[in-house]
């Protein structure tokens, strides 16, 4: 999707919500003006700063829309060791299982059980500006 198409899409999808239009457009501006190395790991705090708002919920919703509906970004999760800052990707099966039983998961670094695994899991985003519209007719394997 071209940047122009993306902006048209945002303006149409959020035509009754100027705040969400503004946040989405700010994130689009950031993604399109940022180098590809940085786009491989965008934190939520970066999106919050670029959106110029303090509303976590509004930025989460904008990030969800831009990740899910228009595919400008991929939304991912990572385990962060609070002491060392080391990160490890968390897949969706683990995330969902940890929602049900958060005390049954270990730190990927120390191997010790965490009292609440989700306390150490954070969202991050991967910018996707060169991504084409997904194949609409073809099949793909998982």
């Amino acid at each position: 999707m071209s940047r122009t198409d993306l902006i048209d899409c945002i303006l149409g999808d959020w035509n009754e919500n100027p705040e969400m239009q503004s946040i989405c457009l700010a994130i689009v501006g950031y993604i399109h003006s940022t180098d590809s190395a940085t786009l491989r790991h965008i934190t939520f705090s970066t999106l919050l700063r670029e959106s110029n708002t303090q509303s976590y919920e509004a930025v989460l919703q904008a990030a969800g829309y831009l990740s899910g509906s228009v595919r400008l970004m991929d939304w991912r999760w990572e385990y962060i060791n609070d002491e060392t800052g080391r990160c490890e990707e968390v897949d969706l099966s683990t995330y969902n299982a940890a929602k049900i039983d958060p005390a049954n998961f270990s730190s990927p670094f120390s191997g010790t059980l965490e009292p609440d695994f989700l306390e150490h899991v954070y969202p991050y985003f991967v910018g996707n500006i060169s991504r084409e519209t997904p194949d609409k007719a073809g099949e793909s394997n998982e």
Partner: protein
Amino acid sequence: MSEGLNARKIEALALVNPCLRRMLDALTAATYEQFVDGLYRHLEDVIKFLELNRELRHKDDEDRLTVEIAGQLKQCAYQVTHNEKVGGHADLVVRSACNDSWLWVGEAKWHSSYDYLLQGYHQLTTRYLPGTTNRNKGGMLIYLNVRDGYAKEVIRQWRSKLIEEYPATKFEESESCNDLEFLSTQDHQDTGVPCTVRHMAICLKHAPLA
């Protein structure tokens, strides 16, 4: 670090923000079944919203109503198209952010006759739904107006019509135990893979006595 906004805090925010909850469901589906279950929970919310404002919707055409549904799904992180060509022009095509290959297709019809609904069901199950793994679930969105009588009766008769036309089809109640919904499953004519369709009435009757 994300300024303290970890998954635990996001999940807590989602407990009091239904739209955020639906969005997280859409973005954290680990399987096709989770994707479809999350989509149905969101569709239930959208249907309630439409029904709550039925005095504004009861004269809308199929496309306008369906575009409204598509718009609400898009706001909660589903990739949605209206009239996309997937074996024909499908009313609603929904893909998952978690896996591009996961597909759900919806066919939307104002109820004018059971034959008209049957035409839509036939298009959905034989043309639009690919009937391959993780592309084998869809929905019939049935808009009902005042001339149709009790919505519950329309759904009962629609189910009878399907039993008559497709004797091999299996039927079950939806998990929500809603009288205005049911599930049908039949093997896809090309792939043999079971395809499940959720039939959902959207009651837009508006005939105030005063």
